[in-house]
């Protein structure tokens, strides 16, 4: 066990699979000698050689497009998109190609690949270095979407994603890269790609969250317990697609009061699906409206991002609202 930050855990995860499997290659913009703008790939070129970790031209379309080609021909590509905000030039390659290749070829060609990308706010990045696009990808059949919130999960989910036979979008909460630290087992281990993680037990209010919102929710839950004696069941979804729907519904039924938290804009955001599942499958258990605490339906601002991002106060407000309903 080592005590690592989330970004160190990502680096460790990459090293672990690269050592075990020659077919794993890591590439993207500035991932080579520079080690990536967040240093997720630090030292990989030095340690594994330029053929295993290399820089690409400035084209996300090319990065993902060539990754699909490598994947279908025996490699296990791990492509980095420098910021999730810059994934959109590759949207066609992801949505039309990686996601649909197995289906359209009747399984003759497949794209076992991972797209790693830092997402989310909290670094004063404004419109284009802060976005959370999970809803776009979770809506796209054929893609898996994974978001860790702890160093342990970051490594275990990353290894599972690289070994997975399908394309996985691995979104890393950049606000947590260095903000969280935790015990990370050495060597290879995986975290299952369709089970949620119960962060905190409680019988009064269920809160769903993922990524950088997990610590925010944890703080709010602690305050709710302290200030009001409200006990929250906090669920870290981890794998947004495929979602552990049974687990989600089970958690909702346990309290009958639900809050869903994410950074992305609310309208047609991922939280809407959670609400919809509840409205569809356990509305009769609900004691209160389902509240969403999310980013606003605007682009991401810069100076005022602390007002834009859900914080513990906003989550606490929602907890109280559904509890007091």
């Amino acid at each position: 066990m080592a005590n690592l930050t989330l970004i160190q855990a990502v680096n460790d995860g990459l090293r672990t699979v690269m050592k075990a499997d020659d077919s794993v290659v890591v590439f993207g913009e500035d991932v080579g000698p520079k080690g990536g703008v967040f240093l997720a790939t630090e030292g990989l070129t030095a340690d594994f050689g330029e053929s295993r970790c290399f820089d690409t031209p400035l084209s996300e379309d090319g990065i993902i497009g060539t990754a699909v080609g490598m994947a279908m021909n025996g490699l296990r590509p791990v492509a980095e998109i420098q910021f999730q905000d810059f994934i959109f030039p590759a949207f066609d390659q992801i949505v039309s190609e990686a996601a649909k290749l197995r289906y359209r070829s009747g399984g003759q060609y497949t794209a076992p690949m991972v797209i790693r990308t830092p997402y989310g706010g909290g670094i004063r990045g404004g419109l284009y270095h802060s976005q959370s696009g999970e809803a776009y990808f979770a809506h796209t059949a054929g893609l898996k979407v994974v978001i860790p919130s702890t160093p342990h999960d970051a490594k275990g989910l990353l290894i599972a994603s690289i070994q997975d036979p399908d394309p996985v979008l691995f979104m890393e909460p950049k606000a947590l890269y260095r903000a969280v630290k935790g015990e990370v087992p050495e060597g290879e281990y995986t975290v299952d790609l369709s089970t949620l993680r119960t962060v905190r037990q409680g019988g009064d209010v269920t809160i769903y969250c993922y990524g950088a919102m997990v610590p925010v929710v944890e703080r709010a839950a602690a305050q709710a317990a302290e200030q009001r004696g409200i006990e929250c069941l906090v669920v870290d979804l981890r794998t947004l697609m495929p979602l552990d729907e049974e687990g989600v519904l089970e958690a909702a039924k346990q309290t009958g009061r639900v809050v869903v938290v994410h950074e992305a804009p609310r309208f047609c955001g991922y939280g809407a699906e959670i609400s919809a599942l509840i409205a569809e499958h356990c509305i009769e258990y609900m004691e209160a409206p389902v509240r969403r605490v999310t980013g606003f339906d605007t682009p991401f601002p810069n100076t005022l991002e602390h007002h834009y991002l859900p914080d513990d106060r906003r989550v606490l407000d929602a907890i109280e609202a559904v509890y007091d309903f």
Partner: protein
Amino acid sequence: MTDMLTVLAPDGATKKGFEADLPDAELLHCYRTMLLVRSFDEICLKLQRAGRIGFSIPNLGIEATQVGAASALRESDWIFPSYRDFGMALYHGIPAVEMMHNMFGNAEDSAKGRQMPVHFSFVEPIHFYSISSPIGTHLPHAVGAAHASKLRGEDTVHLVSFGDGGTSSLGFHSGMNFAAVWKSPVVFLCQNNGYAISCPSDHQTASDGYAVKAEAYGMPHATVDGNDLFAVRQAVLEAAERARRGEGPTLIEAVTFRMGGHSTSDDPTKYVPAELVEEWKQKDPVDRFRRFLERKGLLTPEQDEAMRADTLAEIDRAAKAAEATAAPGLETIFSDVFAEVPNHIRKQGEFLFDLSQRRGEADAGDGEFPL
């Protein structure tokens, strides 16, 4: 247009000093493949007009490009085709009936009836990559697959085929650029057939032809007469050899002409000048190659007649067999989204299976949803 390589004259004569590097049987196989393409076209057109298939893509006029290029590849090479490359598949021995299964989208279709007609996908006897509709996306795929071959030290060549319109796509830009930087073993084959649906070349680009676009990427290029099977073959062979030697990619522009509409849904008379069609009729690639074979004493008019009847019959049989094959089962809607069917999709499948049974629909099959 900059120098265009031509070997075979319209009258079937070859350039001085040219010696076909193919054995006679191979020459006849090339010719027969072109006839197969024509037959395939003809029968698909009829099927479409009769409402028995939904759609097809005419290949009339571009057979020599397809077959010439295919003839330069080994079976261990990969083809990343466009929807208009019937001849590449047929040349390499993909059975016409397999292609017809796709035209009908039936249970035997390798794409399980999920794709439109002409969106073939094969891994044997050659990798004939799964065609997708979005234009140009397969160029980076070829580069990535080639990069994998190269990393493993194989001498596999990856040929990717696309149209004049395809050069404007994003995949062209990123694919060409990455391939040149990585020195990937790729042959980029641009089939300049004059139009992208209704868009003529002067609305597509201001460059003089398409081969010159390779200059932007520091990539070698060649322009060849696309209605001349030998010219195409030679250019692709040379490019493939370069690639096998580790010297990287080449862009080849084959100048040809789409004699039919863009697809069976298109009426080209709205935008293609009739004179142009007339002009290109004179350059028919199949006639040209036939005259060559006749000159060489490899084909008599009678043999030609027989071969035409034979290829038509072969395709006709393939079509009949495919039409007689059942539609895919309901489970094909839900499989292959992921390697394993996740719960939420399984439930949707069960729902549909149950619904279809309640409706008394035969294609639901018996008993449980099978996935």
